[in-house]
């Protein structure tokens, strides 16, 4: 009985981890692209004129 409960608990944790991965990592993976123009602009503006 205790083993069954542990098994069910482990499945629930695995399911929760999968849902959280899907939601937070997978679906929002493209979010950092919104910050790309700022990062690129910052790095571009640190380039000195005449510095090859």
């Amino acid at each position, binding site marked *: 009985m205790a083993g069954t409960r542990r098994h069910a608990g482990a499945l629930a944790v695995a399911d929760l981890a999968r849902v*959280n991965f899907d*939601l*937070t990592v*997978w*679906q*929002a*993976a*493209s*979010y*950092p*692209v*919104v*910050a*790309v*123009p*700022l*990062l*690129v*602009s*910052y*790095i*571009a*503006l*640190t*380039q*000195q*004129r*005449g*510095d*090859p």
Partner: protein
Amino acid sequence: MSWVADSVRDWRVWALFAFLQVPGLRVVAKYLPAPLRSWTPLWLLATLLFYGALLHHRRVRGWCRSAGRGRVYVLAIVIMLSIFNAVVYPRVDSLKSQLRGSDEDDNLIQTSLRLVRGERPIYVPNYLGNPPTQEPGWALMVAPLTLSGTYFLLTPLALGALPLIVVAAQGSELAAALATLLPLSSPAFWELLVTGSDLFAIGVVFAGLTAAIFGWRDLGAAPRAACVALTIAAGTTRVVFAYPAALIGCFLWKRHRKGAVLLIALGTVIVALEILAWWPDRDQVTPISLLAKGVAMLGPIGLPVGAIATAAGTVFAIAQVDDSAASWMRGTWLGLAAMPARWRSRISRA
């Protein structure tokens, strides 16, 4: 090979890698044929060396500087990208007939068209049953593209605007070339280009806003009014982006306090109006539904961690700002990067 050693020690190379290539891994996993996936580590290594060479290899930097001098190269890239997207975007968009594809573009186009027609733009779920998360200011800004049926130009035009912003902020020819070249190296950029996402364009709006407000002291009344309009557009791209709009206002505090107060107040008013218009959002059908989704995604542990990261990022972003446009861009980047906003800002079921 001293440039390789310099590159490995340069955090900017790693930051470029993290923001340009790591989001691209999702694209590789989803779309790349299985036999080609084994080449991914080689691609990642090549891009890392490429970023290092752009920042530390004398000859490569010389080539880029020459390319940056000729504006015709930037124009040619924008035209080619526009033609490419005119062909590919409609094909990707047609996936909605099978209830597939990204609905982010549909949200923006429909919100924009409904606003122009004088119709209520919210509470209208799209073909996937999701409510639009774009808001009025931003939707009106892109209206010329949506009304003319040229929405596919959004990201190409944004890419073309980025080197102009950098040059306007006193960037060199090399800076203009980097601003054009670097986004093109990201698989995620290409994915968002063909799916019609507005995320890259939003980033360019924030870069433009940062550069414009940096020069606030020297602006006349009309350009300042244009800055206010751009702040409203940027602050209403998504409900969470009122925060970086207000953050840029904070950067102005040392240079022009009245201007800073105006812009911070504007950010606050945008949030207040959103709450007044859409709260309570019991059925989660308005643009502020993004907040509920974000809270659910962060979970009980992620929420306080995200709040602390945002607060720390805000303090650091404001503290590091000095009298250079570069520090302002870095500050806005930190603000966007530190937000607990790993919100589901796009829903892709392709």
